[in-house]
């Protein structure tokens, strides 16, 4: 996978005309990926994008790499086969909230559980876009959509909570309007060995416009987002004066300089903590919304375990060809 050729983002842009709606965050994600890839040290021919169905799943067509636009919800299964067949490849699953957590929910959780070295980019826009505006498993209660004109009555998943429940080792939540942050997260995900999940908070300009504005608007985001970084205190706010402390079993927002709170009172983010409890609490926090790489915990990958087992069996096996097997054991001759 090591590479000496220096690529630019243009090397990863295919000749296909991009057909997302004007103003869609998907353009930002696409460009961020094309910019990230030259910095990953990969050979272009080793990169594979696999998708299911939905707006985001058109992504592979726009990348000049190997790509497979498959069927609804099944990209994790296909990606698993690609990675097991050739572990040298850099495999990316491009998916959405419907594709990954509704029709493909089972495959999504099992991919996370098995921990193959695959990167998942989940475009969460809390709506079905390609089928023109039905509620998804991440739509909010009360949300009015084409299939819930009087308000959604189904409770939503929180993507990170679901993912950590399925044993996700790497989870990042990144706003869809921040190209640089996305590029950095993609590079981190690629360098992490194991399944990485990046949830992109992606605005759908047509069917769910403004769904994340209260967190992502330039004027609001400093107070509304806590951007976590491993080893750094959880400080946020326009004036960098707000922080998070643990009060009993709850996270609490405090102001530095008030009530005896100093910078040293603020929790320091440890993305590498094995115990997911605090990561889950951060994921569930509604205001500020926690973004950045929330969890990053190394564990042996599925394909490495498979390879080690194969090497072990190969080293003790006396059989080298299929003929050896067929002609061994309980055979008899007829003359």
């Amino acid at each position, binding site marked *: 996978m090591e590479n000496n050729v220096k690529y630019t983002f243009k090397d990863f842009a295919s000749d296909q005309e991009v057909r997302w709606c004007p103003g869609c965050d998907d353009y930002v994600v696409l460009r961020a990926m094309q910019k990230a890839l030259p910095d990953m040290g990969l050979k*272009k021919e080793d990169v594979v994008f696999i998708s299911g169905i939905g707006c985001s799943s058109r992504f592979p067509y726009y990348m000049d790499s190997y790509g497979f636009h498959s069927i609804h919800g099944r990209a994790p299964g296909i990606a698993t086969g*690609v990675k097991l067949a050739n572990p040298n490849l850099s495999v990316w699953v491009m998916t959405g909230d419907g594709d990954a957590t509704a029709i493909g929910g089972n495959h999504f959780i099992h991919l996370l559980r098995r921990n193959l070295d695959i990167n998942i980019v989940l475009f969460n826009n809390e709506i079905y876009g390609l089928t023109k505006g039905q509620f998804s498993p991440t739509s909010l209660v009360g949300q009015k959509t084409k299939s819930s004109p009087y308000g959604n009555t189904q409770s939503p998943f929180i993507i990170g909570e679901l993912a950590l429940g399925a044993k996700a080792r790497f989870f990042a939540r990144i706003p869809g309007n921040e190209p640089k942050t996305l590029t950095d997260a993609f590079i981190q995900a690629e360098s992490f060995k194991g399944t990485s999940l990046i949830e992109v908070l992606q605005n759908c300009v047509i069917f769910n416009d403004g769904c994340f504005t209260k967190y992502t608007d330039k004027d609001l985001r400093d107070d509304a987002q806590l951007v976590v970084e491993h080893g750094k205190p959880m400080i946020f706010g326009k004036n960098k004066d707000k922080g998070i402390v643990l009060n009993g079993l709850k996270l609490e927002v405090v102001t530095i300089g008030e009530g005896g709170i100093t910078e040293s009172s603020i929790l320091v983010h440890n993305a590498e903590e094995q115990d997911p409890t605090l990561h889950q609490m951060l994921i569930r926090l509604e205001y500020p919304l926690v973004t950045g790489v929330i969890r990053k915990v190394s564990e042996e990958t599925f394909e490495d375990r498979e390879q080690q087992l194969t090497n072990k069996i190969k080293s003790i096996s006396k*059989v080298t060809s299929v003929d050896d097997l067929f002609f061994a054991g309980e055979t008899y001759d007829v003359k």
Partner: protein
Amino acid sequence: MISNEDNNNQHFARENHKIDTAVIRFVGDSGDGMQLTGTQFSDTAALFGNDVATFPNYPSEIRAPQGSLYGVSGFQVQFGSVEVTTPGDELDLLVAMNPAALKTNLFALKPGGTIIVDTDAFNKKNLEKAKYENNPLEDDSLNNYRVIKADISALTKESLKDLGLDTKSIARSKNMFTLGMVYFMYNRSLEHSESFLNKKFKNKPLIAEANIKAIRTGFYYAETLELMSSTYIVEPAKMEAGTYRVVMGNDATAWGFMAAAEKAGLELFLGSYPITPATDILHELVKHRHFGIKTFQAEDEIAGIASAIGASFAGSLAITTTSGPGLALKGEAIGLAMIAELPLVIVDVQRGGPSTGLPTKTEQSDLLQAMYGRNGESPVIIIAASTPANCFEYAFEASRLALEHMTPVILLTDGFIANGSAPWKIKSVKDLPEIKHRIVPNGTTEYLAYVRDEERLVRDWAIPGTPGLEHRIGGLEKDKVSGCVNQGPENHEYMCNIRAEKVKRVQEFIPKIEVEFAQEGDLLVIGWGGTFGNIHASVKEMNDLGYKVGHAQFNYINPLPKNTGELFSKYKKVVVCELNLGQLVKMFRSEFKGVEFLQYNKVQGLPFTKSELTNHFKGLI
């Protein structure tokens, strides 16, 4: 108790008969070890040189309540000094380990046939469970048979009492005692089973010793038993020279794929989800990791095929295995592999349907699902194996067709041949046909994903990792040259036509159908897949009786062999026999206008019997 030095068969006259074939069925509770007992007997017969066919028939419950009628598990074997293609219709010997086993299987025994029973199991409780009002061993209901009553449980217990084993292990050895009796009855050596037991219980020498002692004791007991007035000799069969082994259909299927991968120089990948009766293919392939075979037990049927499609995209010989309900779940993904034009083999080991149906029983009712069970115009190659041994050839052939024609291939087998076993003349990989896959070599600079060769209409296979050939494929309709998305009306029609023509053209690369027995005459009998053995045996019998009957068994179903349409006019009547309500016949009727196809169907979860077919054919002539 038994001392064969004192008691030898000189005490009474025993006749030793020479016979051509014999049919034995071992039946007992599903925990009685009848499958093992039957397998041991069949393997011993095959090693001796007999032709052999077996039929395990067991319930879907793993350990049904003891003594119950629905918990009866059976294993039938026919072995002979002549060609044997079926497990046999009528039994010569029924071994019944309890009243329920006797009650549910007596109908299959020939008049005058032999029954071996474990009299200890015919107690009040078991008789009640089997719904017997009187003990059949004590009334005259078995007068038409020769009944060998042996206190098998008690004798086993007595003979093993000094080994220091627990009661349960002792009780479980009674199947081996019984096997010993049957070995004596058919003049068989104990050698194979003894070495098998030593191997199987390598780490439990006491259990091995107990089982071996039980077999020997059973053998000697039968020798001294006056009731066993006849023993039988079945000479070795005349078979084609070569090295053989006994294979089960599912194992042969797994081996066919292994041979194909080695021949093609590709890694073998199996993505699968457990389902009866297909799981044994997974069980076999997981053992052979040292060949680089990759198996993946997925979270469901869809992930099983999805992972196989991914492995195929990445350049492996990719397989998924399932049964009818799983094939239904895989339908959308088969369509994806079809439109993407990736090689893939889907094995459907058919069982009784619809829905969950009869999971452990056989049927041929997935043919139309395999043909038409997908959205859109979605043709795939369909082939079917017809014997336990030729599951090897057709698994190999399915792989060859998938790789050389860049398309999914559905391989149909069924519970009857998948679990049945027969002698297989071992094929060396070097004697198998070449497989030329379509992988584009490194160094190629130009690649358009859907450019086709003119002869086969097949595209080339550029796999990730090959520099300069980066491209995208997918489930959306694609441009006929570049493979980029193209939903134009003319392009779509062109692509639908060419995908259909590509599969149709496989006709040029498969053998013609051959008719066995009468090449013209009164009746042509058509079958497909796993019904070969019984139809063959019946048509042979018809010809022996002087009727002019031909038999054509189809292994290639989509496309059909080129000469199929030429067969029918040579016979006065044509009958299509299937274990469904008439699926191939439906295809034939739409394909071959003007031919009157009769049909003979059975959907009981059971294979045809030779005699029912012969009776039916006689009625047609």
